[in-house]
């Protein structure tokens, strides 16, 4: 039996751009929906703004190979250390693996990445429209507005398929904004889609709309609010290979004058102003 494996033969030092984190807690907060709290002993970057995301390396063993993007749902800096919250839905291999993490598991990630939500001008009212697991970045935005003393201007709308899949917003004591929920089957909150909640909300020229969720939902929001509010912002999704702008894999179609072009969701986005977007921007990734 020979000792030592080929792939470990070079005991090279290991420069890495990834940040080392440790799982604080990892809990299933609704059916298939997990809340992951990460502790970072050394936070060396600037504080993430709401809407930014991180690329999480699910495994160091090449399976799955690529990192997985997740919005930052919450972030707290305590001196040099930091705490980050991620809320993820189990949809495949990577998120399946992530459910096995428990307190103390090491996690490596790259970020914060991308451009977050532009903050609203004073005096404007914010409507945050979250479809399903589009909620996390909007939670970060709500928390940020609230801690900036603007909580009163915020209305968070949150829709899910049913009660089981829904994160109970009442369990988030630091949220402090008004919210309304709905489910497709009426098992919790109003029955219907989150766009129905939006239809019932007052949108005016002083309103800013922030949306994140499945592509069809965001398309519907875009259709409804375009031209009827001050501005609207959408956090888009796309398949990503790198997450930091070098592969051009995350392209999405946007307006460029009378023409169109591709931009990178990870670098030019993930948040885009509604003015840039067309129906084709909301194609399912």
């Amino acid at each position, binding site marked *: 039996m020979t000792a030592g494996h080929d792939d470990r033969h070079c005991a*090279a030092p290991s420069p890495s751009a990834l940040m080392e984190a440790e799982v604080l807690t990892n809990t299933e907060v609704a059916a298939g929906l997990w809340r992951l709290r990460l502790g970072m002993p050394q936070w060396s970057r600037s504080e993430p703004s709401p809407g930014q995301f991180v690329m999480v390396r699910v495994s160091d063993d090449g399976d799955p190979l690529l990192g997985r993007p997740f919005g930052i749902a919450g972030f707290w800096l305590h001196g040099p250390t930091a705490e980050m919250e991620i809320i993820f839905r189990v949809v495949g291999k990577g998120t399946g693996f992530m459910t096995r993490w428990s307190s103390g598991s090491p996690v490596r990630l790259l970020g914060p990445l991308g451009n977050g939500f532009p903050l609203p001008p004073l005096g404007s009212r914010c409507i945050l429209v979250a479809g399903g697991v589009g909620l996390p970045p909007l939670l970060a935005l709500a928390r940020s507005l609230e801690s900036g003393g603007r909580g009163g201007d915020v209305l968070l709308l949150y829709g899910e398929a049913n009660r089981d899949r829904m994160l109970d917003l009442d369990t988030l004591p630091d949220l402090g904004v008004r919210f309304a929920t709905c489910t497709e089957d009426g098992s919790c909150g109003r029955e219907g889609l989150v766009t129905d909640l939006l239809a019932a909300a007052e949108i005016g020229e002083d309103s800013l709309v922030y949306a994140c969720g499945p592509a069809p939902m965001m398309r519907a929001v875009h259709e409804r609010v375009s031209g009827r509010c001050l501005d609207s912002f959408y956090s888009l999704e796309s*398949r990503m290979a790198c997450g930091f702008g070098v592969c051009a894999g995350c392209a999405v179609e946007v307006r460029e004058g009378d023409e169109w072009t591709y931009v990178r969701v990870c670098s030019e986005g993930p948040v885009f102003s509604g003015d840039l977007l067309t129906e084709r921007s909301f194609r399912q990734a």
Partner: protein
Amino acid sequence: MTGKNRKAVPDLTVDLGRGLVLKNPVMTASGTFGYGEEASAYLDLSELGAVVVKGISEEPRRGNPPPRVVETPAGMLNSIGLQNVGVKAFLAEKLPFLLDRGATVVVNVLGSTVEEYLRVTERLSTAPVIGGIEVNISCPNVKEGGVQFGMCPDMAAGLVASLRSATDLHLMVKLSPNSGDIPGMARAVEEAGADSVSLINTITGMDIDIRTRRPALGGVFGGLSGPAIRPVALRMVYEAFGAVRIPVVGIGGIADPEHAVKFIIAGSLAVQVGTAFFLDPLTPLRVIKGIEEYLSREGMLSLADARGSLVVGDPG
């Protein structure tokens, strides 16, 4: 690094010929590093052997419709297409940044006709600060009905001969694994005047979403890269090394120093890191350090000692 009690530090310098000298054998692979702007937030570009930029065509191109990437077992498929800023914007907006950061720049060039390759190359040759040109012959040739230059030795040789007469820059020709005959391709481009060959480009593949019964990629086909293709790349590098005298640059699934060392033993004089850069932007630096460590430990003073050192034959 030069302390008295330390072993001799191996010499990592690589001379690929015709002016392309690298301070170490590790480059970034075309299309996986953009034009260096984003990467420079993570690493010092001057520490790399060279930066190979995303393939440049005459005019800007938008590339393929999304989805453009999909993960596969130990690999990924991409159908970015030929998205790039075009040679004019590259020279005006991208190159100055790279040079400012001290990068050795190799420009990956592509075209739909021999003439397009020629025009791009001529434009680039007016910028003598460029380290070299990597000719991406995996592009479909519109005049030949979409057959890739890289699938046919005669077409590839014709292209390279034209470029050779148009530039004094180092010409690295990037071979496609989709051709059935790597030694033949390598010999053809060597004879036509290539200064080095790099390989492999991605292997054409596809994936299907069984729910929608649609291709997983907007471009239908994609190029397979990453660890999955490493054994194939290693074989092709070994074949190319046996076929030509010009330097061979190994590419394909290199994610760790050990992988780079395998390519060097198989005959590469330098390597490129592609997909693994996505996983960690410091992968190239980790590979450089690991190669140096390996050479030290094996008591080798330069890369040349390891290069092509594969021992084939009955161990008895």
